[in-house]
């Protein structure tokens, strides 16, 4: 049994929704240490007792909560640890996980739209992102997803992901392009 601390108690009561024989819970932030092994893989140790070589940090909710809720998966894709708040980790662990996450998720943020051309259900975009200039094509309306009234997620025909955090904060020309085309 894991020793319950104050913060953990709150979580357990949240999880307590009357499921019998719930699966064993993953380790929590304060129990683990994450570091980079010499082989360039990410290693996790639990209270200096147990070690998992090659864990993979993933975001549980990459769109709605990209900064919180990180799950660590082992080679078999089973969750071994769950970190609700990266701040609960020690400095090195947090750094390693953040590094891995930025490398895993590439979603360019669109900062300026040069042009949007629409023809026969296909839309051609020419944009500047935080990763540099890029042109891409999307098909139909389904590849544009309004997360909120001002936040947009776009997936192009190849599977590249783009995001506009708040379109009303862009320059007037870009705002106009969005409003007339989407």
């Amino acid at each position, binding site marked *: 049994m894991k020793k319950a601390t104050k913060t953990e108690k709150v979580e357990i009561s949240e999880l307590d929704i009357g499921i019998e024989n719930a699966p064993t819970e993953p380790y929590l932030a304060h129990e683990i240490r994450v570091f980079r092994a010499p082989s360039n893989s990410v290693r996790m140790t639990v209270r200096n007792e147990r070690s998992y070589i090659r864990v993979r940090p993933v975001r549980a909710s990459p769109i709605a909560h990209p900064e919180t809720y990180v799950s660590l998966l082992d080679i078999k894709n089973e969750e071994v640890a769950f970190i609700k708040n990266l701040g609960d980790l020690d400095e090195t662990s947090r750094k390693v996980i953040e590094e891995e996450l*930025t490398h895993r998720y*590439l979603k360019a943020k669109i900062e300026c739209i040069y042009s949007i051309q629409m023809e026969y259900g*296909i839309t051609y975009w020419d944009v500047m992102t935080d990763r*540099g200039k890029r042109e*891409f094509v999307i*098909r139909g309306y389904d590849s544009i997803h309004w997360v909120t009234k001002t936040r947009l997620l776009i997936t192009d025909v190849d*599977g590249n992901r783009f995001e506009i955090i708040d379109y009303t904060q862009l320059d007037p020309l870009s705002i106009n392009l969005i409003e007339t085309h989407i």
Partner: protein
Amino acid sequence: MLGNKIYKEKMPVILKESIESVLRNGETVIIAAETDLSKDLKFEKRWLIVTSQRLIEFDPGKKNISEVIELVNVRKIFIEDLVGSARLNAEIGNEIVEIVRFTPSLRSKFGNIVQGIDQLIKDKPVNLDVDIEKKRCDKCKRLLPDSSGFCPSCPDRLGMLRRITGYMAPFKARVIVMVSISLLYSLAELGPPYIMKNIIDGVLINAGSDVSEDGTTLLYLLVAGFAVIRLISYVLEIIGTRLSLWLGGRVTVSIREELYENLSRLNMKFYNKRKVGSLISRVSNDTESMMSFLVDGVPYILTNALLLVGILILLFVTSWKLTLLVLIPIPLLIIGGWFFWYRLIRAYRNKYYRWSKLIGLTSEMLHAVRLIKTFVQEKREMGRFNENNEGVFKGDFNSEKEAALFFGTIKVITSSGLVLVWFYGGEAIIDETFTLGSLMMFISYLWMLYEPLQWFGELNTWSSRAMSGAEKVFEVIDTPAETEDQKNPVKIPRIKGQVEFENAYFSYEIGTPVLHGINLLVKPGEMIGLVGRSGSGKSTLVNLLCRFYDIDEGKLSIDGIPIKDVRLEDLRRQIGVVLQDSFFFSGSIEENIRYSNPQATLDQVMTAARTANAHDFICSKPDGYDTRIGDNGKGLSGGEKQRLSIARAILHNPSILILDEATSSVDTHTEKLIQEAIANLVKGRTTFAIAHRLSTLRSANRLVVLDEGNIVETGSHNELMDLKGHFYRMVETQRKSTEIVAVSGKKNLSNNQVIEVNR
């Protein structure tokens, strides 16, 4: 290292120079490929250079090399797919090193390249077949929306039109008639204004002063002529429309027929790449847009082009000065019409999108009415609806606004021409150099002239849509049919059923192999149970056996003959497949059983049904064998469907049988019936059975355990249990979760009973 196929993309000069400067003696470049992402995830150009000795990452912005890996140290090379990007990794010792990064746009290119590097590591000759997807249209330099390589905005209109007209060849006579009717129609249309001019100038102008007998006769004559011309053009229009409808319809019918025929012949790889929805749209929408253009567009263009020429000639003859004035607004009309037309369709598209969202939401709500009520979410749904309702208002408002703008602009421009004519024509009449009749004729022709020009934008959209539709349709028609037979295929009228895999490799998507060297010899009549987790390659083995795909490397032979040499028709005719979720066509039960063997008599159908334990339940239905089953077996229970598909397979009488999860999710009694049916079916046939419920594989002669594309264990049930390996662990897990094995004693008994029944 002879026989290496080299793959090099066009490199910038600086890069070429810096590569040459670092090459060692005897080292050659084998692969040079550009990536679109730097390691710190910026959209920048980097190059992957693979030489005969090293893997190198180049940054064209810098002179020196950024990353070098000696090939001898590389144990494994692979692609790791991340979210929104992917990286090429090399395993060196225990370490995994990232070589280059790229976006999903370049995934398939690097999939190919990885294979090449892998061959290089293994000291095999590099046989790279990188089919670089074209990313941009050669003509307009725009990005392409899919890998098929054609650009929807620049279809080869002339070529397409020529090809479509090719389909009209059998109806030459009708085409000639249609064209001449268009010509006559245009001529007839030119008549009325001219008659009007003569009525005004010849008769009416003199009204009141001296109307002679001749004047009145002329009036009657002219009016009669006017009526006759109207009548003629009425008749011509009806005949012309009918003809174009008929011709357009015929052409699309034959194109659709060809399209459908080819769709059913294409190989599975084609279908893997494309969504069924997009193919259905090719059969319906794309041929439809071609048809509408052929039926309405082509005659419209034809008559209006002729009319335009006729009008211009008549106008010039009447007054060339005035005609030149009239031409002034035309460029404005075309440009204005074009510009505002595009704004208009954009607004309309937006409106339809908003409408479809609202309709979707409403139907979702109606379907989920119980759910909404049980969770008391009416208010929230109302909110969602209102939000979209507002959106629809916005869309409606915008599109109507644009429509008003479009028509308003057109009106202003055309009236400007009219103003010019009234002004200068009026002046000329006062100067008595022009007649009132001529002016009225001029104005009538003016309307006829401006009318078609304002639709220039629409015409362009229309023809482009039709042509790109045609292009998509022709793409399917032109795709070569599947896995064709060899030149001299071996005919095997009766397959004995020996199947042999020899070191077989296969991958659906280049770079991610699914089978890694499968070796398996199956004797005729043997029953093989294929066991393994999902994704372990069981279904792939079966797909290869049906020759839906060809293996990449190694051998697969049937009765000792390589499968590629066996006549496809013979092969497929003698392989039977029973799926868990079998497909049924709408029709009667009898028709559905007979589908596998259309020549079978009703007696044979019934015998098959009896052997499949299906006869009883069929007879108990009010309409017996004539019971109609709806789309995909609607109205049948799961167990009934399974037994019907077994009956179908029995009637098919295959030499090789594939049972893909043939039994599942039924009650124990039904399962017993199905097990009996299967036992009847597999007798004397080479059988491959796939099942997740291991208990159903008890009757198999041998079990083959697959894991990640490798055969890890083979043997009988008991042998594998004694081995305590993969299979044992799987059985143990299932015992824990379903306790099926706990009752396996009973099951054995039922199997014995089956055999007794058969005897």
